[in-house]
C-alpha cells in the first residue's frame, strides 16, 4: 500500500511541476513585458537579454509626463464604459423578453444576432468610413461608442439571455401577481437575482471594447484614439523605445488583466452560453 501511496505522491509532484512549467511558459511574455518596463532603454535592447538589473521607474515617469498618454487612456475609458452602458440598456430588455416571453422566432433571432458577429468588420469598413466622414464621426469618441455598442450587442444579449434562462419563471409570476409592471419586474426582481451574471457581461464588454483594435486603428487619428492606437504607434520604425513600449503596454493591460482574474468564473459561464458551468 505504501508504494501505491508513494506512486500517487510522485505523480502529484510530477503533474504539478508540469502544470507550473506550462503556466510559466505561457505567462512568460507578460512577465517579460512587465520586467522590461523597469529597464533602461539600453538594457531593454541588450543582447543577451538581462534578467537581473537595477529597476528604474523612468519609463513610467516619462510616459506620465507626456500628457498625451492620459488623453489616450481617458479615450479608452470613455469609449469602453460608454459602449458597455448603452449596450446593457439595449441588451437587458431584449434578453428579458427573449428569455421569459419566448416565441417560435426567438431562437432564430438569437442565432441571427450572433451571425452579425460573423460579418468580418473589413467587409463594411469602407461604407462605415464614408458614413462616419459624412456625419462628422471620424476620430470622435461618439463614433467609436456607436461601433462598439453594435459589435458587442449580440454577445451581450446572448450572455444575459443565458443567465435569465436559469431563473425560475415562478419568481416572476409571483411578482406579476403582486401587480408589478415589466419594468418593475426587471429592476426589482431580475437585476438583483442575476447581478453576478450581469456583472460578468459588463466585464466582458469592457474587455472587448478596451482591446478592440480594428475599428480604433482605422476610424481614429488623434483626438479620439484609445490606448490600442497609442500602443500601435510604437510599431513605427523610429519607435525603438522598447522599455517605454513595455511600460505603456503594462499600463494599458493592467486594469483589464486584473478585471479578468477577478471575474474568470463568471466569465466562463457567460462566454460558453451556459454550455459550461
Amino acid at each position, binding site marked *: 500500500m505504501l508504494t501505491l501511496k508513494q506512486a500517487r505522491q510522485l505523480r502529484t509532484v510530477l*503533474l*504539478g511541476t*508540469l*502544470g507550473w512549467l*506550462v*503556466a*510559466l511558459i*505561457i*505567462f*512568460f*511574455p*507578460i512577465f517579460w513585458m512587465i520586467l522590461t518596463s523597469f529597464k533602461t532603454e539600453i538594457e531593454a535592447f*541588450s543582447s*543577451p*537579454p538581462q534578467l537581473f538589473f537595477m529597476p528604474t521607474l523612468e519609463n513610467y515617469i516619462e510616459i506620465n509626463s507626456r500628457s498625451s498618454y492620459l488623453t489616450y487612456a481617458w479615450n479608452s475609458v470613455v469609449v469602453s464604459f460608454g459602449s458597455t452602458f448603452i449596450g446593457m440598456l439595449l441588451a437587458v*430588455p*431584449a434578453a428579458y423578453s427573449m428569455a421569459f416571453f419566448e416565441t417560435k422566432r426567438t*431562437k432564430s433571432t438569437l*442565432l441571427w*444576432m*450572433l451571425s*452579425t*458577429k*460573423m460579418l*468580418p*468588420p*473589413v*467587409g463594411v*469598413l*469602407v*461604407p*462605415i*468610413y*464614408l*458614413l462616419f466622414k459624412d456625419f462628422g464621426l471620424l476620430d470622435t469618441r461618439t463614433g467609436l461608442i456607436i461601433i462598439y455598442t*453594435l459589435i458587442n*450587442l*449580440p454577445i451581450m444579449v446572448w450572455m444575459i439571455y443565458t443567465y435569465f*434562462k436559469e431563473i425560475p419563471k415562478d419568481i416572476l*409570476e409571483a411578482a406579476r401577481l403582486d401587480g408589478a409592471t*415589466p419594468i418593475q419586474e426587471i429592476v426589482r426582481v431580475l437585476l438583483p437575482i442575476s447581478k453576478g451574471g450581469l456583472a460578468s457581461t459588463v466585464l466582458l464588454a469592457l474587455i472587448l471594447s*478596451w482591446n478592440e*483594435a480594428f475599428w480604433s*486603428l482605422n476610424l481614429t487619428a488623434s483626438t479620439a484614439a484609445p*490606448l*490600442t492606437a497609442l500602443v*500601435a504607434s510604437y*510599431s513605427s520604425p523610429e519607435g525603438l523605445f*522598447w522599455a517605454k513600449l*513595455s511600460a505603456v503596454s503594462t499600463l494599458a*493591460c493592467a486594469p*483589464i488583466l486584473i*478585471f479578468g*482574474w477577478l471575474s*474568470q468564473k463568471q466569465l466562463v459561464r457567460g*462566454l*460558453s*452560453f451556459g*454550455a*459550461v458551468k
Partner: protein
Amino acid sequence: MSISNLQVDKATGAEGSASSVKSQNRQKSRISLAMVSPSVLVLLVWMIVPLAMTIYFSLIRYNLLYPGDEPFVGLENYYYFLTDEGFAAGAFNTLYLVLSVLAISVIFGVLIAVLVDNDFWGRGIVRVLLISPFFIMPTVTALVWKNLLLHPVSGVFAAVWRFFGAQPVDWFAEYPMGAIIMIVSWQWVPFAVLLLMTAMQSLDQEQKDAARLDGAGPLAIFWHITLPHLMRPIAVVVMIETIFLLSVFAEIFTTTGGGPGYATTNLAFLIYTQALLQFDVGMASAGGLVAVIIANIAAFILIRIIGKNLTDKQ
C-alpha cells in the same frame, strides 16, 4: 409561445374567462416585442446599410484619388479582385491561419485543461497565469512578441537559441506565417483552457472511478469519458474562435504588415490595403463582399453543427 409558458398562463388565468387570457397574452407579446425591437432594429440597420452601400460601391469604379469619375462597371471589380494574385494568397492564408489556430487551441486547450484538473500545489495561481494572455490587447501582444521575444538580435528566443549553440532565427523573415500563428495561438489557447478547465470540474468523478475499477487505463478514460464530456465546450470554443479568427487584423498590422510579399496577408488585411492604402473603394468593396460571403458560408456550417447544440439545452 413555448409550452411551459402556455401552461403557466392556463394556471394563472383559470379563474378568468378565456378572452381575458387572450388579451393578457396579446399585451404580453406586445411588451416583449417592444423590448426586443431596439436591439433587433439597431443590428438590422448595422447589417443592412453598410452592406447595401458595399454592394453599390462594388459595382462602380470608385477611387478616392479620382473623385467625380464613378461609372457603373458591373462585375469588373469582382473580376479584378478575384484574379488578383493577392486574393488567392489572402484566401489561403485566412483559411490556414484559422484552421491552424483552431487545431492548436483545441489540442493544447484539452491537454492543459486535463493537466490542471489534477490537484497540486498552487493550482489556483497556475490557472490565473494560464488564462492571462486572453486579456491582453492584440496590439500589445503583437508588439511584445515582435520586439521582445522574436527579435533576431535581442529577443528572448534568440538568446535561448544561442544558449543551445544554434543560429538565432529571424522569424518574421523566415517563417512569417508561423510567427503569426504562434502569436495568435498564444492569445487563443488560454480562451480554450479557460472554458475547458471549467468544464472539467463538472465531470462525473464516480463515472471515472467506476471505469478505473473496471480496469480502464488513463488513456481509455480520457478517450471514452473525458473527451465526450468536453465535446460541447469544444464546440463553443470552435465557434467563438472562428468568429474572431476570420478577421485577425491587429496582429498582422503591427508585425509584418502583410508581408513579406503576400506571405501573411489574410483577406481582412488585403481589403484594408486596397481601401485605405490604394484608395480603391470599388475593389475593396468587392473584396469586402467576398469576405462576407466566405464568412457566411463558415457561419452557416458552424451554426448548422453547433447552433443546435447551443440553444437546445436545459
